[in-house]
């Protein structure tokens, strides 16, 4: 049995609501980070409120699996990745990731975390499909997800509006057999 939490640059973990709240409160103030990761309006919640959100989330929810991303060398918390089961019946999950620490952008940390999350979905949850969406303007993410093996499945026209400019969202998916084939070639 593999250690499915350990990658080459990062490991998947969990942190206390206090610790997460501190990190999120700081990262939220970087609106470029927020606008790359999220489609809801950028907001500045207090640490106290974020801690409440995290405590609520930590209560067992059989359909969502969220992990903190820690660097292997310094054990530094750099972001989070989550799986939200859209349907156990259809064995599909949504995947979302954000790297809050901008020093770790474009260096392979996010891609490593994505690989671990996809592996978890297929090897631990036994799912068939992983889906995700991203803003069309997030080119770094698109490259990263393609590297992991996600295939582009569509584009939603004008799904977002920021600073008066309409932008599309892109949608990608990877099937279990595609991922297994990729693993084999490694």
């Amino acid at each position: 049995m593999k250690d499915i939490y350990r990658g080459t640059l990062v490991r998947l973990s969990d942190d206390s609501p206090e610790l997460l709240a501190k990190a999120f409160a700081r990262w939220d103030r970087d609106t470029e980070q927020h606008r790359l990761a999220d489609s809801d309006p950028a907001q500045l919640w207090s640490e106290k409120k974020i801690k409440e959100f995290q405590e609520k989330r930590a209560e067992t929810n059989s359909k969502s699996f969220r992990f903190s991303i820690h660097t292997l060398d310094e054990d530094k918390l750099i972001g989070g990745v989550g799986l939200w089961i859209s349907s156990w019946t259809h064995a599909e999950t949504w995947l979302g990731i954000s790297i809050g620490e901008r020093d770790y952008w474009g260096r392979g940390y996010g891609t490593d975390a994505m690989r671990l999350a996809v592996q978890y979905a297929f090897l631990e949850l036994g799912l068939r499909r992983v889906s995700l969406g991203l803003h069309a303007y997030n080119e770094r993410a698109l490259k990263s997800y393609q590297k992991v093996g996600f295939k582009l499945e569509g584009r939603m026209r004008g799904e977002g509006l920021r600073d008066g400019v309409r932008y599309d969202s892109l949608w990608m998916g990877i099937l279990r057999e595609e991922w297994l084939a990729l693993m084999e070639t490694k």
Partner: protein
Amino acid sequence: MKDIFKGQLVRLSAMDYEEFGRAYATWNRDSELMRLMDSGASVLHSAKAGKDFFEKMVEKNSPEHHFFSIRALEDNRLLGDINLDVVNNWLGRNAFVGIVIGNRADWSKGYGTDAMNLILRFAFTEINLHRVTLTVFEYNPRAIRSYEKAGFRHEGRIRGALLRDGKRWDMFFMGILRDEWISLNQ
């Protein structure tokens, strides 16, 4: 898309807890029925207690529990109930099935077998399980034959699990896999 709730003799229907509470209060009084289906001591519940019990179960509306009442196609009368309980939070895609035909006048008429076929179709083509499991008591040969006919295989026995009328009896485990069911139903 098939209508998977209709069989040849019976149909699967929603559970009306008032109706069920009343029916169970009558069926309870047949201790042979109770001893065939339940490992706990036979108890005589009132119609109200039955109603409250079923109401609580149905209200939860959990995706892990699927309850159906079994109704005769000819005259729509309530024959019993059948249910699926997904275990282990979906990871193994395994569920336990339980069935009751309440009135002994309705036994050995094929109602149970028809209902079991419907629930297996539901299990394998609507919620996409990998296997269905059941337990049955050694002293219930009628049920064991019916399950064998539906495709269940013997997988093991818990020795001496039941003590009734001063004698020890085994509890059998039976199971059917998705591929097995598909071959049988080609």
